């Protein structure tokens, strides 16, 4: 007779078979049997957070920087509701998470028991799938299935809700065989005909552009390598979404910078004027497209995505290719090599005018700003941070707001999985716990959370987690005392009515750092900035860096909401040169 295991033991057996090394969690009444079992499984380390949302974001940071699924363990009721923001965030940004939640015993479900909530009901719309385990016999099957659903196809979060009595009950644990067969929901059946069609479009195009997104990163590091090869083999310009940064080197000449609402002038204009747009693993998000009716009106659009429901969701495309980015790019390269071995040379002439035009847009230097000797400009702070950390293999997380956009504009990435930011949901408070997860996955690497003072306060309690596990994360706060992006919109679009966007009472971040048992550093002037950043980098402990920046600075360039790509608003330097008049002004 096989040995009978309790539900709690089976949970760990499954995690071991899935090669899980870390779980991020917080104990409570309904998961106590699982926590009780933790001590018997030394290959799995538990990271105790200070709030379940922090567990979720930390697991996201872990997953996005390592390519492995993040695992979260929370209790019933408030434990589960607190993790909802992180699950939704992971759902929007396609991050593989497996969340295990405790539930009240089966006989109490539906009685409004203590710390009961309808966890599967609440998390249904923010997970790829979720399960309430009602029978111990289903437990192992469900957990393995949960990992499969989270990591295959377009990745995303899943949740397994386990009532406390199930955690105690016993059953046998069948030997786990990892299936090589993908589940029925994965689509990677593109045809050579589609690839041939694409190559034909590419060879005819005079104004092509690659528009790449997070799908390239999710497809694995090999996809980024192949993307570089593809760009080299075609000589086409390439732009990236916020989530795609890093899949192509940020300082490469073919790279036009990020596109979208705060993207570069050259990227957005190239998107608007191109005759062939090749979308690789991006999803035509509204922050990317601007006004949809006037989005890239003259182009043939090709969309490569693993999720069939991303095709034609926002923008109608001419050639959809449903498949995994890595295999699709690999097929494209093979086809080009076979049918047009001299593509890049023969094509050079054809797209030379296009590159000339792009050169003209580039001359606008849309990311420029007016620097100052007295106050630290936030863009300058990010640029200095970049210059001083670019030779290390640095991992950057961010919160959400102006600082996030400045980080995306001025920090140049050359590898995938180095940039973790909340793009889809836009979750303030994401960066700090995400940095915790990144540092867990990469203990020896430099991990910096480029933060705003408002965002970081939403999850500041996780500094305590960083201290507990000796995680030397650096919280680089661009402190302007405002919710900067809100202030910017109010200035530009709401007649400078700064309604509730100023934080009149902020903590002293240096003292706060000390209170948490980490190091606080403050920079007030541009002169001292470099030294202080170096001091931060050389500190082998968690640091809160309070960088006091210009309070009025706005993030440019900007596509005003509801406008198309070619109606960008440029920064103060440009505005000074070509005084915006009449029609230009109404765009703001």
């Amino acid at each position, binding site marked *: 007779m096989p040995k009978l295991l309790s539900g709690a033991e089976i949970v760990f057996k499954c995690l071991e078979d899935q090669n899980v090394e870390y779980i991020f969690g917080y104990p409570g009444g309904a998961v106590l049997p699982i926590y009780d079992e933790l001590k018997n499984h030394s290959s799995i380390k538990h990271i105790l957070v200070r709030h379940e949302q922090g567990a979720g974001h930390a697991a996201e940071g872990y997953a996005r920087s390592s390519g492995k699924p993040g695992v979260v363990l929370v209790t019933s009721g408030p434990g589960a509701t607190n993790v909802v923001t992180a699950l939704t965030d992971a759902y929007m940004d396609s991050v593989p998470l497996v969340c295990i939640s405790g539930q009240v015993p089966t006989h109490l479900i539906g009685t409004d028991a203590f710390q009961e909530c309808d966890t599967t009901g609440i998390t249904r719309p923010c997970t790829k*799938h979720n399960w309430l385990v009602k029978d111990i016999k289903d437990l192992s099957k469900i957990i393995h299935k949960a990992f499969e659903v989270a990591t295959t196809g377009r990745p995303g979060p899943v949740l397994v809700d386990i009532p406390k009595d199930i955690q105690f009950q016993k059953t046998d644990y069948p030997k786990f065989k990892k299936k090589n067969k993908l589940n029925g*929901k994965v689509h990677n059946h593109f045809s050579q005909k589609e690839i041939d069609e694409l190559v034909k479009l590419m060879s005819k195009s005079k104004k092509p552009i690659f528009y790449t997104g997070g799908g390239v990163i999710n497809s694995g590091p090999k996809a980024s390598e192949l993307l570089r090869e593809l760009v080299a083999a075609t000589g086409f310009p390439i732009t990236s979404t916020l989530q795609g940064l890093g899949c192509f080197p940020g300082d490469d000449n073919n790279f036009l910078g990020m596109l979208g609402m705060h993207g570069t002038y050259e990227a957005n204009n190239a998107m608007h004027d191109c005759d062939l747009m090749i979308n690789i693993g991006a999803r035509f998000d509204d922050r990317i497209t601007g*006004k*949809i*009716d006037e989005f890239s009106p003259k182009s043939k659009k090709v969309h490569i995505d693993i*999720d069939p429901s991303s095709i034609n969701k926002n923008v109608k495309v001419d050639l959809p290719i449903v498949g995994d980015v890595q295999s699709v790019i690999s097929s494209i390269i093979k086809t080009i090599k076979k049918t047009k071995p001299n593509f890049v040379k023969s094509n050079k002439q054809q797209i030379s005018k296009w590159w000339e035009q792009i050169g003209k847009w580039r001359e606008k230097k849309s990311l420029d700003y007016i620097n100052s000797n007295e106050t630290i400009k936030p863009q300058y702070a990010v640029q200095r941070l970049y210059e001083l950390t670019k030779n290390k293999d640095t991992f950057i997380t961010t919160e959400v707001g102006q600082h996030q956009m400045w980080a995306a504009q001025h920090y140049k990435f050359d590898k995938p999985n180095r940039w973790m930011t909340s793009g889809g949901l836009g979750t303030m408070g994401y960066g700090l716990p995400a940095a915790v997860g990144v540092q867990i996955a990469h203990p020896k690497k430099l991990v910096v959370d480029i933060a705003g003072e408002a965002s970081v306060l939403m999850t500041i309690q996780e500094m305590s987690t960083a201290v507990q596990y000796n995680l030397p994360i650096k919280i680089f706060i661009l402190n302007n005392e405002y919710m900067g992006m809100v202030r910017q919109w109010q200035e530009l679009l709401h007649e400078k009515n700064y309604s509730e966007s100023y934080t009149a009472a902020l903590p002293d971040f240096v003292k706060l750092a000390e209170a948490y048992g980490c190091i606080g550093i403050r920079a007030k002037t541009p002169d001292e900035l470099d030294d202080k950043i170096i001091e931060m980098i050389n500190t082998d402990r968690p640091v809160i860096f309070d960088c006091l920046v210009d309070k009025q600075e706005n993030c440019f360039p900007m596509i*005003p*909401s*509801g406008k198309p790509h070619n109606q960008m608003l440029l920064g103060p330097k440009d505005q000074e040169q070509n005084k915006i008049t009449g029609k230009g002004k109404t765009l703001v």
Partner: protein
Amino acid sequence: MTKSKSAYSVAGKKEKLDTHIIVVWVDNEAGVLARVVGLFSGRGYNIESLAVAEIDSKLNISRITIVTTGTPQVIDQIKLQLKKLVPVHKVADFKREDKQVIFKEMALFKFVGNNNKRGKALNACKKYNAVILDKTKKSCVIQITALRREIDKMSKNLKKFGLISVSRTGAVAMTRGAETFK
């Protein structure tokens, strides 16, 4: 109201709406209907009617028939989003005008009134496969099967014959001929 400059996004052009019947084969498990219906409400899709029941107790399969309206793009999205759900096996989509597909709804009508009125009511129902399910001295319950708009019309027109209560199902659909949807 003046148009705010601070638009989050501006809605695009409105396209023509079509009515479609979406048939979904799902695992009959807890919460599956909530998943399907939640997808519709969460993404702002419309449900005109809904019919669901288990059709294969051995394989544990239920068949959900949903009548919905949307632009061609929205209908495509509905199908693709449904196919992504883990317990969904297959999704079929029929246009209401499709002659190759049979659509039927069932309705129960309760009439109260004198013999004369009830006779007229039954007469009016006859062309829709009327079945008398219950009969007393002053009332009767009649079952009909018909198209949605026919039942709409009937329930309006039969008021004068003492129709006091209507109960109806959502539409169910099946293709004509020997083929089944794969």
